[in-house]
Each structure stands twice: as C-alpha cells, then as structure tokens.
C-alpha cells in the first residue's frame, strides 16, 4: 500500500481526499483488463471531473476532457510505476489534458489565452449581468482561461507557483500576478 500513498504536499497529500487505494484493480488494469479499469474509473471519476470542470469552465467540454483523460490514463498505465499516488498521477494527467486543450483553443482564437496580456484579466470573458449573484463555481467558470487555470491550480488544488508557471509556460511572477487578478475578479463578482 505504501507505494500508493501521496508524496505531494498540500491538499493532494491528505489521505482523506483520496479515493480508497485500489492496488489490485490497478494492477489488473495496468495489465490490460478493461473491467478492472472500470473500477479505477469509478473510484476516481469525481475527482478528475471536478478538476476538468473547474479548469475548463464549461460542463460539456469538461465531460469530454474527463473521457479523454481516462483514455490517456489507460494508454499510459504501463508507464505508471507507483512512485507517486495513483490519484496524484491521474490528477496531473487530467490537468495536462485540459491545459493542452486550452492551448489548442488559444491557437484557434489568439485572443482568448494571452500569456501576459493584462488587459484580458480586467473583465471576465463570459458576460455576467450586473447585480447577478453567482456562487463561487460560476464565478470561477466566468474567469478568463489563464487566470482561471492559475486560481484553480493554486487556490483549489494547492499546487506551488513554480509548478503552475512551468505547466503554463509563464514566469513565476506572471503566475502570481494572474492569481491576484483572479482573486480580485472573483471577490468582485461574488460581492
């Protein structure tokens, strides 16, 4: 069981957050048993879907990305060597899947995913009628994509700034500045 304990700090590391470890099902899935993979899916889908939903900010897309993440996990299971908790490994894979999708999206619509365009952070992308009260999930979904990514990874998922900056391909200072803007926009939307 020790091989499946988390080595990551922060929220990922607390045992209570992990679905029950599945060494047996995991081993069978790793050897190519789709039925066993179904059990792995059942144990982890809520967690994977949550991070896809918050990063993507769109329910339909989040469903598609969740499916894509599990297919990718199935393909890469042979390379999972149990060095980190499976949940953490899968979480990283899901985050990568969403970020890749956001990057591809930004290439299609240059404007949406600027690296350092601060103006993009001044106004939420989705139009929120003034005076509308939103809950935090909706407010997160309304953030510009990159500010949303930084906020979700840092404040919700507990990633360190350095990891976030690396994943997004921006400087650490940029990631911090975007986090500040994301928090500012959120509290303003929620007020």
């Amino acid at each position: 069981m020790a091989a499946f304990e988390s080595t990551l700090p922060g929220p990922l590391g607390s045992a209570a957050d992990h679905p029950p470890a599945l060494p047996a099902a995991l081993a069978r899935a790793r050897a190519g048993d789709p039925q066993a993979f179904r059990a792995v899916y059942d144990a982890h889908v809520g967690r994977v879907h949550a991070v896809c939903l918050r990063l993507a900010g769109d329910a339909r897309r989040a469903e598609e990305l969740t499916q894509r993440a599990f297919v990718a996990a199935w393909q890469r299971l042979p390379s999972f060597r149990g060095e980190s908790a499976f949940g953490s490994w899968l979480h990283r894979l899901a985050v990568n899947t969403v970020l890749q999708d956001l990057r591809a999206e930004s290439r299609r619509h240059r404007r949406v995913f600027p690296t350092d365009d601060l103006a993009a952070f001044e106004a939420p992308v989705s139009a929120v009628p003034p005076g509308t009260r939103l809950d935090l999930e909706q407010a997160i979904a309304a953030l510009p994509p990159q500010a949303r990514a930084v906020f979700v990874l840092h404040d919700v998922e507990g990633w360190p700034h350095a990891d976030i900056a690396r994943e997004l391909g921006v400087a650490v200072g940029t990631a911090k500045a975007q986090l500040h803007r994301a928090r500012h926009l959120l509290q303003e939307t929620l007020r």
Partner: protein
Amino acid sequence: MNCHRWLDARAAYADGTLAGAARADFETHLVGCAACRADLAGLRALPDLTRALPRAVAPARDLWAGIASQLEAQRADLADSPAIDWPWRRFAPWALAAGIVVLSSVAARRADPAWSVAPLQGVPEVDRAAVVAPAGFRPGQWLATDASSRARIAVGRIGEAELGPGSRVRLRGVSGRNHRLELARGSLRAVIWAPPRLFFVDTPAATAVDLGCAYTLEVDDRGDGELAVTLGYVALAEGDRESLVPAGARCRMRRGHGPGTPFADDAPAALRAALAEFDFVAVPPNGTVGRILAAARPADAVTLWHLLGRTAGAERAAVCDALARTHPLPPGSTRDGILAGDIEPRRAWAESIGLGNFSSR
C-alpha cells in the same frame, strides 16, 4: 470600483505576506481608499469559500460508455490489423497495449509528430542552452543532463522517454518510419506505444529497436551498457548480431562486441558471470557453456534459447538437451533440425516457450 495600481500589494496584504516599506505604503493608501478596503474584505472571505468547494464532482451523465467504446475501438482495430511477426495476441496483457498502438499510429498520421523536451528536475540543456520550460527538440540537437537534472522527451506522438542524470542524447532523425535517438552516455527510459520497429536508440555498442514496449538503457563512459525491458520486447542489434529481450529480462552490450546474451532479471550470479565470459571474452575458457547450463533454471529459457544460435556441435547439443528438459520441443520441430541450425524449428520453439516468434541471428 477598481484600484488596479494596488492590486498585487492588496493581495499580498490579504495573504499576510506584505512586509516592510511596501506594507507601510499600502497601509497609508488603504486608509484613504474605500475600493481597496472593500476588495480586501472580499479577498479575506475567499479562502473559506474556496476550501468549501467539493473535491469531487460527479459528472451529470455516465461518461464510462464513451470511454469504453474508445477502448473497444482500439481492440477492434487490433483484430483488423495485419498479422505481424510478433505474437501479441498470445499475451493477453499486451493485446490491448498493441491495440492502443494502432490508435496512436492513426493519431501520428494525422499530425506531424513534433518532438519536445521538458525539464523534470534541475536544468537540462539543449545544445548548451538551458531548458526551463517545455521546448522543441530538433534533429541534430543534443540534450544533456548534469548530475542533478532529468528531462522528459516527448517522442512525437509515439511515446515518451525520460533522460536520467549525467546523460547525453541526440535526436538523429525523424521520418515516418524512423524515429532515432543516439544515447552517448547515461540512462534513458523509453515508453513507446507505436507499432514495432519505429523507434530506435543507437548507443556506442548496439542499437535498441523498439518492438512495442517499455525499457531502460544505460550507457557508461566507455560506451558499454545494459538494457532492461519491463514491458513487451526490445531487439538489441549490432552488425549481424541481434538479441531479443522480453519483459523481465536484460542484456549487456559492449562496444566492439555488440549485444550479449539476454538473461532473466533474477538470473543466478553464476549464470551471469559465465555469460559475461561467453559473450565478451575473445576465447572463452573451456567449459563456459557447461557452467551456464549448470547454473540455469527453467526461468532462464531466454538465455538458453539464444545460446542455440551462438553455439555449435556438441555445445549446441548440450544446450538443446538442457532446454528440452524444461521446455519440450513443439510438435513438428526436431532435435536434428535444431542441431542443424535451422531457423524454423528454433522459431517455433521460442513461440512455444513464450519468448515470441522471432529468429535470432
């Protein structure tokens, strides 16, 4: 109402991380700025709201069916694919891995497979330029790690490789059927999901030919090295000499000699020692083959089978008889055929042992 000039200071102040003169400046501003005070109240409420978010959110509809159909499609592709030399279907666990390979190769055809490098630890270098974020990796470029760095190489869309500390690897070429790295020194772990014989790693002693697998290659400063396979098969080739290394086995290689004879991960020390002499000493001492056979267990069939193609006369007969004691010859294959050096019976024997349908040269 917004007060953008103080955005970063406000966030740091709310966090309790603003200090010294910057803190004093902000406090001076704060007492006169209602916008900042309102923002600050909102910022301070945010962590509690964030902590209250559920860690897991079940999707509104069942997503498994869509996932299962993709896994199923991969298996269907496998069934339609032409027979290959390697008996994938015999190995239930690999049958699906091979199916994934089909899907990935479709993807590889769809888009130009770009190679890239990402740092995993420390600061690797591509052509002496630091790699701090994922970057392209082009033919001719060298990727180097020092004692405290590691890097991940995305092998187009066909797989990925991790370069260990103290290593140097060059991207030699990329074309439809030829993805080739040169590992000059250090360690490389590759996980490849492409069809067999698309991915090659040259080392000073031999070339590793991927047959759909996961493996680690290590090369020392002299250019000698060792291959360890954890999934599928790898062919280790140099000149007319080829060793086929299945999962759970490893194979040494020496510069000037090429690949040695594969042996099981847990092979007895006496077998390994005798094998080193057999493989790499110009004139092995008398009785070397005898010592290998004396140390061999049933699980060392991979070694004995390779020796069939590397011995002659009485030695080959002794190897054949030793292997036959634990793994009987399959129907249609005869001892005489094996001793005559015929390829077909040897290939059939490998298949019946479960080593794969391959021929050794």
